[in-house]
C-alpha cells in the first residue's frame, strides 16, 4: 500500500494493573477514549431500550393480552423513546464525532478536552438518573416507578396534578443534565472544526463528515436550548407554584407542545445528519469515486439545518391551529424534502459509474439509501396536513419515524461500526457474521416496520396497551412482533461480532478499505497524540493524492 509513507510506528504498551487502566479510562480527556466510552455507554442503553421495545411487542402480539399491566406498558414506551433518543442515538453519534472529527481534520485532540470529559459524564449521569427512577420514582395514580407520561411528556399530563410523585422529575432532570452535556459537546465540536484544522484544510477541503458534524452541532445548540428552558419551566410549575403548563390554573398545554417540538423536530435532523455523514464517507470509498457534488452536499446540509428549524408544528396538525398556520408548516415540511432529495441523488451519482465493493459497510449504506427514501416519502405523505389528520398519532407515524431512526440512522450507524471498527481496535469485524447481521436485521426490519404502517391506516392509535380484536390489527401486530424479535437476534449477532472480533478479528493495518481521509493515515488504533507531525493537505482526499501522485485531486482543487 502506498500510504506507508505516513505510517507511525505502533507504540508498545506494557501491561499494567487493571485498576490503573480503569483509572485512566475514568479520568481520560483523550477524544478517542471518550468517543469509545460514549459508544459503549450507548450500547448498554441500547440493550435496555431494546428490551423495553420487546416487552411492548410481546404485549401487543395478541389482542387483550395480559403480559403487562397498562401502567407497566406506559412506562415501557416512555422509557423506550426517551432512552433511544437521548441515551442511545445521541451518545453513539457524539461518540463517533468525538472519535473521528479530530482525526479527520489532522488535530491532536478536541479544542476543549476537559469540557469533552465533563460533557460525557453529564450524559452518562443523566442516563443513570433516568434508570434510577425504576427504584426511586412514583408515577401516575397507582402507577409508581419509572416515568410514564410519554417521551413528549405533554402538559398537563406531566403536571403535579396528574403525575404526582417523582417519576416525571427523574425524566425532567435527566434530560436537563444530559442536555447540558450535549451543549458542551456541540460547542466543543464547533470550536474544534473552526480552530483546529491542519494546514491546508480550509473549510472547502474538510471531509463531508466534518461539515455535517459542524451543522449538527450548531443545530444542537439551537434545539437543546428550548428543551432545557421548558424543563426548567416544568420544574418551576411542579415545585415553585408556577403555572406555565398547569392548565388547572390557566396555563397553556399548547405552549409545552411548541417548546417541545421546536426542540423535537430539529432533534430528528440532529440525529439524521450524522447518519448522512457516515453515508457520505462510506459510499465514495466503496464506490471508488469521490463524493459527487461536494459543494451542493454542504449547501443541502446547511439548508436542511435552516429549514428544519421551521417545521416543528407538523407534529401538531391535530391541535386545531388555523388553516394558515397549517398551510405554512405543510410548505416548510415539504420543502425539507428538496435538500434531502438532492442528497439522495448525489449519493446515487457517486455510485453511478463506480466500482461498488459489496463489503458489509456498503451493504448497510445501500440499505440506508433504500429505506431512507421510503421514510422520506412517508414523511411527505404526512406533510399533507389533511392526510395527517388521519395518520397523526396512529401506528403509521410510529412506522414512519422508526423507518427514519432504525431504517435510516441505525443502518448508517451499523455501516459506520463496520467501517471504523478496524481503525478503533486494529482488527476487522468478521465479514460472515457481518452478513448474518445484515440479512437478519433487514428481514426483521422490513417484517416489523413495513407492516407497521398498516394498523395505522386501519385506525390503530399509538400508545395503547391493548386493542380490540376484529379490527384487522391482530395478524399484523403478531407479524410485527415477530419482526421485532428477528431484529433483536440480529443485534445479538452484531454484539457477538464486536466482542469476538476484538480478539479474533484479522489485523486491520492502517488503511484496510483503501480510503482517502486522514484518519486512515495513522496506525490502528491511533496513538494518543494522533499525529506525530501535523499533516498538511492539498485537497479533500489527502490519501488519494499520496496514492496517486500521477493524478492527484490537488491538481483540480
Amino acid at each position, binding site marked *: 500500500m502506498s500510504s506507508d509513507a505516513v505510517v507511525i510506528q505502533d507504540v508498545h504498551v506494557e501491561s499494567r494493573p487493571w485498576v490503573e487502566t480503569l483509572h485512566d479510562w475514568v479520568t481520560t480527556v483523550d477524544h478517542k477514549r471518550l468517543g469509545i466510552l460514549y459508544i459503549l455507554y450507548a450500547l448498554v442503553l441500547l440493550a435496555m431500550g431494546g428490551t423495553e421495545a420487546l416487552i411492548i411487542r410481546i404485549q401487543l402480539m395478541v389482542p387483550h393480552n395480559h403480559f403487562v399491566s397498562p401502567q407497566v406498558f*406506559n412506562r415501557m414506551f416512555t422509557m423506550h423513546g426517551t432512552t433511544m433518543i437521548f441515551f442511545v442515538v445521541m451518545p453513539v453519534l457524539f461518540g463517533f464525532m468525538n472519535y473521528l472529527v479530530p482525526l479527520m481534520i489532522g488535530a491532536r485532540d478536541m479544542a476543549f478536552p476537559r469540557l469533552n470529559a465533563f460533557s460525557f459524564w453529564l450524559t452518562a449521569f443523566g442516563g443513570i438518573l433516568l434508570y434510577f427512577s425504576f427504584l426511586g420514582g412514583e408515577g401516575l395514580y397507582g402507577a409508581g416507578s419509572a416515568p410514564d407520561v410519554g417521551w413528549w411528556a405533554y402538559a398537563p399530563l406531566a403536571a403535579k396534578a396528574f403525575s404526582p410523585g417523582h417519576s416525571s422529575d427523574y425524566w425532567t432532570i435527566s434530560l436537563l443534565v444530559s442536555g447540558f452535556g450535549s451543549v458542551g459537546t456541540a460547542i466543543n465540536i464547533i470550536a474544534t472544526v473552526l480552530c483546529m484544522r491542519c494546514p491546508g484544510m480550509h473549510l472547502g477541503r474538510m471531509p463531508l463528515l466534518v461539515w455535517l458534524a459542524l451543522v449538527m452541532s450548531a443545530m444542537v445548540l439551537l434545539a437543546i436550548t428550548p428543551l432545557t428552558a421548558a424543563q426548567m419551566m416544568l420544574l418551576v410549575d411542579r415545585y415553585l407554584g408556577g403555572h406555565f403548563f398547569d392548565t388547572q390554573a390557566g396555563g397553556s398545554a399548547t405552549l409545552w407542545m411548541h417548546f417541545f417540538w421546536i426542540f423535537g423536530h430539529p432533534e430528528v435532523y440532529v440525529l439524521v445528519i450524522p447518519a448522512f455523514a457516515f453515508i457520505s464517507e462510506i459510499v465514495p470509498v466503496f464506490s471508488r469515486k469521490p463524493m459527487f457534488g461536494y459543494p451542493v452536499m454542504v449547501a443541502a446540509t446547511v439548508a436542511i439545518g435552516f429549514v428544519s428549524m421551521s417545521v416543528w408544528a407538523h407534529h401538531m396538525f391535530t391541535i386545531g391551529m388555523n388553516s394558515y398556520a397549517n398551510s405554512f408548516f405543510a*410548505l416548510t415540511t415539504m420543502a425539507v424534502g428538496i435538500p434531502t432529495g438532492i442528497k439522495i441523488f448525489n449519493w*446515487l451519482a457517486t455510485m453511478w459509474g463506480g466500482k461498488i465493493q459489496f463489503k458489509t459497510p456498503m451493504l448497510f449504506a445501500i440499505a440506508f439509501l433504500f429505506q431512507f427514501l421510503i421514510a422520506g416519502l412517508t414523511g411527505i405523505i404526512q406533510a399533507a396536513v*389533511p392526510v395527517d389528520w388521519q395518520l397523526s398519532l396512529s401506528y403509521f407515524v410510529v412506522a414512519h419515524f422508526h423507518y427514519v431512526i432504525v431504517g435510516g440512522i441505525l443502518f448508517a450507524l451499523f455501516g459506520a461500526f463496520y467501517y471504523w471498527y478496524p481503525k478503533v481496535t486494529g482488527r476487522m469485524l468478521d465479514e460472515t457474521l457481518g452478513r448474518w447481521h445484515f440479512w437478519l436485521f433487514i428481514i426483521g426490519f422490513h*417484517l416489523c416496520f413495513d407492516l407497521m404502517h398498516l394498523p395505522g391506516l386501519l385506525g390503530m392509535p399509538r400508545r395503547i396497551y391493548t386493542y380490540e380484536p376484529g379490527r384487522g390489527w391482530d395478524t399484523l401486530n403478531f407479524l410485527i412482533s415477530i419482526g421485532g424479535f428477528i431484529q433483536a437476534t440480529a443485534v445479538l449477532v452484531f454484539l457477538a461480532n464486536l466482542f469476538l472480533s476484538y480478539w479474533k478479528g484479522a489485523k486491520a493495518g492502517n488503511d484496510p478499505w483503501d480510503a482517502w481521509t486522514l484518519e486512515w493515515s495513522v496506525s490502528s488504533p491511533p496513538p494518543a497524540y494522533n499525529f506525530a507531525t501535523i499533516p498538511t493537505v492539498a485537497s479533500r482526499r489527502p490519501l488519494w493524492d499520496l496514492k496517486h501522485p500521477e493524478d492527484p485531486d490537488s491538481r483540480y482543487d
Partner: protein
Amino acid sequence: MRGTSNSAGLNAFATSALIALGAFPAIAFFWWFLVTAVPNAPAAPLASLTNVFAPETTPGRMIFDLSVFVLAVTGLIFVVVFGLLAYCVVKFRPTEADADREPAQVYGSTQVELAWTVIPVLIVVVLFLATARVIHAVQDAPKPASALDVTVIGHQFWWEFRYPSLGIVTANELHVPVSDPARPTPTFLKLMSADTDHSFWIPQLGGKTDLIPNRVNEMWIDPPRPGVFLGQCAQYCGTQHGKMLLRVVVDDREQFDAWVRAQQQSAAVHEQATAGRRVFETTSCVNCHAVAGTAATGRFGPDLTHLMSRRTIASGAAENTRDNLRLWIEQPDAIKPGSLMPAMKLSDGDLDALVSYMVTLE
C-alpha cells in the same frame, strides 16, 4: 486488494438480494390494498371497520382523494429513485477486467444537480397547492344554520357529549343525525377537555382533532347514511388511554328524533328498584354521577340517566350487561385497570340491589 474472484459470487448474491428488498414494501402495499379496497366498494355492506380509506363524510372523502393523489406522486418518485438505485447496484459491480483500475473520478456536474433541484421544487409546489386547498375546504367551511351543535368533553378515560340546543347529556356513544347531501344537516363538534389532552378520532368519519384543556377546538362531520362507526382516543391521556373507546351512532332522521325525545326524559322510576336507588343515593356514587330527577348531580363521571340506552360501559371496554355492570361496580380493575372509577366495596345484597336499579335507567 479488491476484486478477488472469491468475492464475485458473494457480490452476485448481495446484488440479487438487495433487489429483492424492493419486494418487502410491495408485499406490504398489496396487503394494504387487499384490506382497504374491499370495504371501500360501494356495494359492500357497512362494516364497522376503522379504516381511514373507507371514508363516509365530506371531509373524509376530501382527505381520501388527497391521500390517493399524494400516494401516487410519492409512489412515482419511489419507483424512479429505487430504479436508479437498483440499476447502480446491478450495473456498477466490479468486473475482472477493471480489477486493478480505479473508475473515472467524477466530482460533480452543475447541469445535472440543477435538474434534480428544480424538479423536486416543482413537485413540492404542486403537492403544497393540493394540500392547502383541502386544508381550506375542511377548516374554513361555513357552518349552515341547519347544523347540530354537540360539545365533546374529554375525561380520563371517557367521553362526555352535551347537546346544548337539545338539553341532553350523555357519554361515550355519540348520536348524530344523517346528513342528506341535498339538505345537509352536519354535526359541528366543539372539543374541550376536563383534564389532560385527548384526541377524537373516528377514521371513517374523517380526521382527528385534539381535545386540549383551556382550548376549544372544532370539527364537523356529515355522514350521509346510518351506521355505527368506531374509534378511540388517539392522544395519550394517561393510564387507561388504551381503553378510551368511542363510537358514533349515525341515526336516520326518525330514529334520531326518537332518541332525542327519550334522552330528554327524566330517569325512569320503578317501584321494585327503590332499594337500589336508595343505595345509589346514599353512597359516594352521587359524587361523580348524575341521574336526572334524583339527588345525584355529580359531573366527574358519566351521566347515568339513560345508562341502559347505551350498548357499552366503561367507555366501550365492556358490553352493557347486568353481569358486567355488577363487575364494574364491584371491581373496576377487572375490566379497566387504572380507571378512575373506585371499587365501591358494597355488600352482595346492596350490590345486587344497585345493579337492579341501574338496569331500570333506560
